């Protein structure tokens, strides 16, 4: 039994459900998803968990009669709802026909996807009595099977649909149901507090940063251009002053400078609701003659789950008009862990573009002798409070 469903405790809510026709009460943490409630709280292990982020379809169950992802339905979201799992479909006519057809067509091998596949297939049979093979394949595309190549599954579903059509059984569209997410019954207020309140987690030591090898080959890259209304020599000089430049970079904190060309610190990254802080170190190089520089760094987030390594090369040149500067940034990075699993390169570029725009404004303010404005929209650096206030340019683009 998982920790989330251990014996009753103060952080758990009393969850009333109707499961397979039987009224049940189960204690669950608000964060428990319906799949864990069913499996760990009620021993209904027919509902399988695969990816737990809505992609594989193994956990598909019926909520108020409609298929949903159990892994994306949290306990608090379905209070009072009726759940039907694969165990509850033993006597269901359509499920019975599907089981026979799956058996006949060899529509399963290991069986891991089968409970979700049957629930999804039953929904297609009910809603799409005219479906051809293409519609069925589209309709089953949210349920992954690693064994069968889908051919037998599609044949089985087609056979059941054709048979029921032959018997003149009409579709059920669910047209009369109430608006809104299925399972979210109207009217019931709910308060499930968290006891004790979630304390900020002490920052875990960052995982050891691998040696910053010159052979680093980034997986992703993009370029960025900053235009500044100040002469190139002034801009290049400022870019050599780590503390000054870093003060212009939103979300960055410098914690140590063990050697003249090495810095340690962190960068808080926010993309919409995602907020994470990478900590690590970076090496700085600079060519005074060519007016170029490079920063090569690596870091991990607080739990050490997501990791990144990146390199920024910059070149300071003359801008389009005399007395102005164009800074060309060449950013390459590799991201691993959950953030990479979710993040698409485009989101990182959009974030980097917005960081660069703010960085550019702050640089301009500093070069103009104005105090850089306080960065807008950034939360306090939860994991880095009390550390040095100086900031670090090295972390630009470390998303």
């Amino acid at each position, binding site marked *: 039994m998982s920790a989330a469903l251990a014996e009753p405790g103060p952080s758990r809510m009393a969850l009333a459900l109707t499961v397979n026709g039987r009224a049940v009460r189960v204690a669950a943490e608000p964060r428990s998803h319906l799949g864990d409630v069913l499996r760990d709280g009620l021993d209904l292990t027919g509902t399988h968990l695969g990816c737990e982020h809505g992609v594989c379809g193994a956990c598909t169950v019926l909520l108020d009669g409609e298929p949903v992802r159990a892994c994306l339905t949290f306990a608090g979201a379905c209070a009072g709802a009726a759940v039907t799992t694969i165990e509850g479909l033993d006597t269901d006519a359509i499920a019975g026909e599907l089981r026979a057809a799956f058996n006949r067509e060899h529509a399963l091998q290991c069986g891991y996807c089968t409970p979700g596949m049957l629930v999804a297939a039953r929904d297609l049979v009910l809603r799409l009595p005219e479906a051809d093979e293409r519609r069925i394949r589209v309709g089953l595309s949210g349920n992954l099977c690693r064994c069968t190549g889908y051919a037998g599954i599609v044949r089985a579903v087609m056979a059941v649909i054709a048979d029921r059509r032959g018997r003149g059984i009409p579709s059920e569209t669910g047209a009369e149901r109430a608006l809104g997410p299925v399972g*979210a019954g109207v009217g019931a207020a709910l308060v499930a507090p968290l006891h004790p309140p979630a304390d900020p987690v002490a920052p875990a030591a960052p995982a050891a940063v691998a040696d910053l090898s010159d052979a680093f080959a980034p997986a992703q890259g993009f370029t960025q251009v900053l235009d500044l209304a100040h002469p190139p020599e002034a801009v290049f000089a400022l870019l050599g002053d780590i503390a000054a430049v870093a003060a212009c970079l939103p979300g960055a904190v410098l914690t140590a400078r063990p050697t003249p060309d090495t810095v340690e610190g962190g960068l808080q990254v926010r993309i*919409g609701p995602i907020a994470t802080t990478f900590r690590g170190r970076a090496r700085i190089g600079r060519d005074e003659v060519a007016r170029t520089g490079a920063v090569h760094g690596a870091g991990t987030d607080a*739990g050490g789950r997501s990791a990144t390594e990146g390199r920024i090369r910059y070149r300071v040149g003359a801008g389009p008009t005399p007395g102005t500067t164009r800074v060309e940034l060449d950013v390459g990075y590799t991201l691993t862990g959950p953030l990479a699993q979710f993040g*698409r390169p485009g989101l990182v570029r*959009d974030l980097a573009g917005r960081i660069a725009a703010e960085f550019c404004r702050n640089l301009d303010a500093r070069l103009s002798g104005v105090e850089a404005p306080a960065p807008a929209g950034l939360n306090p650096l939860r994991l880095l409070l009390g550390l040095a206030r100086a900031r670090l340019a090295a972390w630009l683009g470390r998303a």
Partner: protein
Amino acid sequence: MKPAAFAWERPDSLPALLARLAEAPAGVKLIAGGQSLGPMLNLRLVEPSLILDITGVPELREARVEGDTLVLGACVTHADLEDGRVPDLTGGALRRVAAAIAYRPVRNRGTIGGSLAHADPAADWVSALTALGAEVEIAGRTGRRALPVERFVTGALTVALGPDEILLAVRVPALPAGAAWGYVKHCTKIGEFAHAIGAVRLEPGAGRGRAVIGAVEGPPVLLADARPLFGGRIGPDFAARFDPRAADLALREAGMADAVERHIHVTVLGRAVAAAADPDPRADTLPEAA
């Protein structure tokens, strides 16, 4: 793949929700159907201390027609639109977009307001509602305001909601008689987030139209006046007049540097234009990858 611990509250009225939101700690997050936020919670990319479930507010689960405008409460689901449980003023445009979002179990819980407030650039409603000229209704403790969708979505996963505000409803103007609508998304696997989206809402009779190129890095690229895409004039022959070079130029100006990316997006926009000229009622409920 288990979320960090959070408290869960489900206010049962709009005043209660707004009051709770105004006094809530910084780590509060709103949830509707949870089909975008859920994966982020499970991956612990988002770790709120309190989740406010907005589905208990009755007016968020309503839809109505106000004159020439369809008003969809934030908690109306994709499946509600797919199944025709709400009125339609768009000649089926909303229904076809909704029917091709992700998978049926996701559509049964995922909401139009949640998707829009989440503002993933590759999500369908961000582009489709921008092309349709929709507005959002926003409620805060101090009152209500409205914004066009193109001013609501300000960046990837970023919208113009204040910390004590919620998205109340989406207001979709009717598609007038004679208007042409085309929406195409390109996915390599059915149900995944799109790699490119093209959408056009054209009024050949009035000589005007909007075009959107979506699933880009930030907010969708909107041509509120789409005439440059059609040699300066939108008429009944708009499909033949579509000029891919003008679309390519618009993407260059929007900062899309990669020529391959531009080619993909221009091609998908061209397909949306073709679909607007010659709607195929059989094919258009299926994503392109099908």
